């Protein structure tokens, strides 16, 4: 299985592989559609071209208009800034109706809460609500999500200053940043969330072991 994956992967990165070698791989090692387990009953002798030429080049403007994601290292964060004080006003107007006046009341996802501060018991007990403060591993995720999907009634409508302010306010309410910290593209990626080191890779592998 792993061997097959490696072969298919190498084909896909064919810009680095000589055409002759590509042909040998294609004929000898795998089904051209990449599905080794349930392919065609009678494979055609016609080889797929290296490129079909379908689709059209995406323009830089098109990419920029959709490429809104923000990564943990800050890639994707736009210019702008905000503080918890500024964010509090936006929160009251846009967010409190769903998340409660202090971020703990709901009715929807509670945002604020650090308890229990010295433990991460969520696999053992439902005693503690899971919040940004006690569960979210990356602060940049907060910017990304608010910007793309909130507020519920007008998703994607907030400007960068408002989003930075909201992130600052939610982090402040969770006792993670100071009230006067100016959040922007430089300061946000530096924030280390309390639960950051609690997350581990999936270690399930199939086979006889139950994990």
């Amino acid at each position: 299985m792993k061997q097959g994956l490696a072969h298919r992967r190498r084909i896909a990165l064919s810009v680095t592989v000589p055409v002759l070698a590509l042909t040998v791989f294609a004929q000898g090692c795998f089904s051209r559609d990449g599905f080794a387990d349930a392919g065609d009953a009678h494979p055609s002798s016609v080889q797929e071209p290296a490129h079909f030429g379908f689709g059209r080049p995406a323009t830089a403007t098109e990419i920029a208009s959709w490429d809104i994601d923000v990564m943990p290292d800050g890639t994707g964060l736009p210019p702008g800034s905000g503080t918890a004080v500024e964010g509090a006003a936006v929160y009251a107007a846009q967010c409190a109706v769903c998340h409660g006046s202090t971020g703990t009341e709901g009715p929807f996802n509670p945002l604020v809460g650090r308890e229990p501060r010295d433990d991460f018991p969520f696999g053992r007990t439902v005693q503690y609500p899971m919040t940004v403060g006690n569960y979210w591993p990356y602060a940049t995720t907060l910017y990304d999500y608010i910007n793309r999907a909130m507020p519920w009634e007008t998703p994607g409508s907030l400007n960068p200053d408002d989003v930075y302010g909201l992130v600052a306010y939610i982090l402040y309410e969770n006792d993670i940043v100071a009230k006067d910290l100016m959040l922007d593209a430089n300061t946000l990626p530096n924030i280390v969330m309390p639960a950051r080191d609690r997350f581990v890779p999936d270690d399930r592998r199939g086979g006889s072991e139950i994990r």
Partner: protein
Amino acid sequence: MSKTTDASMDRQTGGDSSKVSRRALLAGTVGALGASVLPGAGNGTQTPTDPTKVQGGPARTVGRRAPSAQPQRLTYGNPPRGSLTPLQDLNGIITPSDLHFERHHAGVPEIQPETYSLLIHGMVERPTMFSLADLKRFPAISRTYFVECSGNGGGGYAGIRPDRTPQQIDGLMSTSEWIGVPLSTLFREVGVKPDATWFLAEGSDAAVMTRSIPVTKAFDDAMIAYGQNGEPLRPEQGYPARLLLPGWEGNASVKWIRRLELSDRPFMTREETSKYSDPLANGTARLFSFEMDAKSIITFPAYPATLPETGWWEIRGIAWSGRGKITAVEVSTDGGRTWVRSNLQEPVLSKCHTRFRHLWNWRGGEAVLMSRAIDETGYVQPTLDRLRDVRGAATHYHYNNIRAWRVRDDGSVVFGLEG
């Protein structure tokens, strides 16, 4: 209570006229017929007592179900944010498209196929926009796979109640024949760079749903699907196109797919960190727990069905594994003390529902029915106690423990050993 009627199930459960009439009434209130009309031919008249003595109904441009057999999804949430497939009312491995479970995080968007585009960019040689027509022009494949929400089975893990149906326990799961283009074909087309190891999949719903996916999955069996069971995708399944990651938790198969961005690291989106991660008893949480472990559930006999008499009954159910083919399903009628191999119904496909059947002579008295699936990696579906020991009693997602049904003296069937 599942709002379903199914003639075959009613026959199996036999003689309980109060139950049948309640079901028929429910179907009448939601179906094409008014509640005042008896279930029947559906041509606007009363059901004939002898259908050989009157002309039947006309041909129709779009078919419909028999009025007396109206399986229904069960919605949940207010407003409804998901619906469950009526597993106890279905046979075979294919889920009718209009009964495929749904789960969405900001409703079902309406997308115009003429203006739809899929953008692939980031660490690629040629950032490209594909129209729907472009996607359909590539060599097309069809594959039959299950899709399962990673939260499926939660009602069989914690808060277990006896009055739960297969639909309520495991209805966030369905199987379809998916038609589309292999993602590997598209990635070759745009020239994915050698250092790209992850890609972001982004939907065009109001959640702008995002998940990070390892590039290796694209060159294994991922596809961009635009067809389902011979027709275009249903809106709630991602029309006009979705990502389909066979065997992986359903949330990662991003619907209404609009953008794939290649990168050399994961993006750590809200869904994959704060939601679809699995907190464990040892004070950690698993990230990117994509694969669905092997599972099975008996769908008959199961609550609310009853066995009206002792004698021969066929225990029926489905098994599936996100890691490959099911190699065996064992059935116990004595609460797990002894196990026997059931019949596996062909076809047995990888990452797909597999039907199992076991003929059982019920001699009366209490019986506890269980099934456990074994997949081609050698994985054996664990007991509830074992899974709780390993994961923790309050863990989230991937609830693949053995499900139990208790057949009581009077033939009634209830879910679980607890409650």
